[in-house]
């Protein structure tokens, strides 16, 4: 477990776990700048297979930018990242075969039906036809989208589209899953389903990195939590490690103390 001061943040070493083969996700010195604005300063991380890691941080901290760099959607200004040992920039096709990704806003092809969308995704990920058809049916039933699957995706609600995006990300049974705010827009039943699904994926050896603002989900589900603020990792470790360092406070207390939000909580108390 590490709680980092500003000097230490600059160079967090990647963690490789001996005996577990290559890390599922690793990043070294990832940096992204837009002109003079630094979105991510220096991201170093290593996530094992069979591990669920929560990626926390205030709005604009750099979570989505980090996820987009790790998935190859954004080209980093500096640094590198590997998925199951494959470099996302230099061996991108192999790296992308290993993971599924669901962004915070699931913009899908509105003019494809649910079935067509899943078949399209299966072809992109080279899933054999028989396996793809079976898995598509299973996923549609699991997410309660089977009846709506012949309809155009544009007719789905936000939550249904979110679930369809997740089904698309799972069609090739990925070893790594990146999720950006996966429970936003979902009803409690669907949110619970996703939580159970993530646990199953972990049990089968997949790695999951997901960003969320719901600290309760992170606290209950994650093996490890990474907190990012202003483009820097400011804390990383298991819940036990974080509590050990910060006393017996909740994740919310730890989050507020390392992201500078504690003063706002005090201000809110005064306003009461």
């Amino acid at each position, binding site marked *: 477990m590490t709680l980092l001061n500003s000097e230490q943040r600059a160079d967090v070493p990647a963690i490789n776990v001996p005996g577990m083969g290559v890390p599922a996700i690793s990043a070294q010195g990832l940096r992204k700048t*837009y002109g003079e604005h630094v979105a991510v300063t220096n991201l170093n991380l290593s996530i094992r297979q069979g591990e669920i890691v929560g990626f926390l941080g205030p709005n604009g901290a750099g979570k989505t930018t980090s996820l987009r760099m790790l*998935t*190859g*959607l*954004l*080209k980093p200004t500096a640094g590198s990242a590997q998925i199951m040992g494959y470099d996302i*920039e230099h061996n*991108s*096709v*192999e*790296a*992308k*075969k290993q993971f599924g*990704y669901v*962004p915070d*806003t699931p*913009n*899908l*092809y509105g*003019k*494809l*039906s649910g*079935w*067509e969308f899943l*078949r*399209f*995704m*299966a*072809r*992109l*990920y*080279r899933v054999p*036809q028989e396996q*793809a*058809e079976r898995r*598509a*049916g299973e996923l*549609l039933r699991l997410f309660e989208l*089977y*009846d*709506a*699957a*012949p*309809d*155009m995706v*544009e*007719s789905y*609600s936000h939550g249904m589209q979110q679930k369809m995006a997740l089904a*698309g990300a799972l069609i090739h049974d990925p070893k790594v899953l990146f999720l950006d705010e996966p429970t936003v827009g979902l009803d409690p039943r669907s949110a619970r389903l996703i939580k159970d699904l993530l646990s199953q994926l972990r049990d089968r050896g997949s790695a999951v990195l997901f960003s969320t603002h719901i600290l309760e989900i992170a606290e209950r589900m994650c093996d490890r939590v990474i907190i990012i603020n202003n483009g820097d990792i400011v804390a990383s470790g298991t819940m036990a490690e974080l509590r050990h360092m910060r006393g017996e406070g909740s994740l919310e207390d730890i989050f507020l103390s390392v992201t500078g939000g504690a003063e706002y909580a005090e201000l809110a108390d005064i306003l009461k």
Partner: protein
Amino acid sequence: MLSDTWLLLSLRWHVLWNTFRHRSTVTKISTVLGSLLIGGFVTFTAAGIGWGLGLLLHQYPDRDLAALLPGGLLTVITLLILLSSFGVALGSLFLSSDLELLMSAPVDRRAVFLSKMLDGMLPSYTIILVTALPSLIAFGIGQNWGPLYYLLVLLTLIVLPFFPAGLGSLLVMLVARVAPARRVREILGFAGALFGVGCGLLGQTSRFWIPNLVGGAVGAQPDVKALIDDVRGIANVPVPPLLAGRGLASAGLGDWVPLVASYSGYLLFTVGFFVLCVWLADRLYAAGWVRMQSSGNSKRGRERSARAAARAGWLGRAPAWFAITLKDWRVLPRDLRNFAQMLAPLALLPFAFFSLVGGFSDTRATQGGGRGSRGNPFESFGAASHSALGVFVAAGVLVALLFVFGRLAETSISMEGKSWWLTKAAPLSPAELLFGKFVSAAIPFVMLALIFMISAAIWRGFSFVWFLYGLYGVLMLGLGLLAVAVGLSVPWAKFDWDDPRRMLSVQTSIYTLISWFVLGLMGGGILCIPLLLDALNPELVGVMMVVCAVLSTVVTGAVAYGFFRFGMGKLSTVGEN
């Protein structure tokens, strides 16, 4: 309610001003200059039309045209506004992104409706400013009419959009009660394209129907006086723009009784109809808006899904690059607005083709080539003009098909829109992705090229060798030019569009056009060398056909490959901002 309406309108204008203010200086200057240039051109043309109509009045003094001409002008402008008012009303009343915020804000709901409606009338006033105002002023100056005419012109034009705006809003409200607004927008775009195709076809066939319209034979001079008399018959129809036209003419001529009668009729009808439409539409607005929030398919069911599950089709077993192609072929026709972009040139294509092939004078009889020469494929080589027909047809087919499928190639990456992340995060190599996009445009291009070239060959009786040579030229050059467009579609791809008609970037369009022109001259020029030899030294034609085909293929292939590689290189960074 009025204060809320004013608040919402001023906020809207503030947003528009801020949008303009935060653009780069170059964009601001080019926007202002472009608007002035286009506005100036339209204004000047409209004034010319007004002046010309005035001359018509002097030319036919016995035809009593004073009341008809301003009314006719106003009717045309009203129809123009009416055509756009439905789409504008649909967009501003149901599809603006700020509606949820406004409908849940503590402002009068009627103020939201009214502000949106008035906001939607701004384009109408712009049309009036550059068309009706200059033409009516020029017409008045030509007649030497007094200040009352100009005063009433201003009042008329202020009131003019009320009728089409009211009608448009009312129609939108009624349609929104029975169909989802987004689908209506698509159908509207499609209908607009059909209207364009219809106008295009009417223009192309005008030489056949205009003489019938004016009662003369094909090729005869139309009887203008008879035509004027026919049109004058509708001048007395009591519709607002014609009433206003009669009022304006009476003001110019100083006839007070018809002035008061016509003009008061115009004002009462227009303003009254507007108020009635606003009142009715306001009552329908909330219901239509609420309906739009809850659109879905009521026919969902397990059996239906099971049937869909059993129909995997090609998409279920295609390689990744072809899955991209199949996806594009499904998505494209399902968005009617997008499909309409292709429909217009596609619909005009057969007509242009038949005009091209059929319109060319038949030289077979005089030159000795054609059908009768099929026994010897080289027999028609001496027929230079027949060969020229072949080149003309081949070039025509190539240009027409590029017009249709070039857009598909130019927008191949932009077409992904906001779903671009799906393709970019997928394990696809740049070559696979661009190849899939290329095939989307190439297959229909090849199919239509084959159909048109074979039809032309059978119809006009090209020799078999020249047919093969022409077909090869069309396919090779066409595919090369499509590959260039696909490569250039990458760096300037637009992903943030909501309306597929706006997905083509200006840069892609311009660079593609320039590249096509240069490559077309190079590749096409080489292919035309045997035609020159056909006239100079026919014995060398056979050899030169092979040499030129190879040379042109090498040049076109190298250039196309270069552009394709350029696009592949840009794929990793496109859409990052």
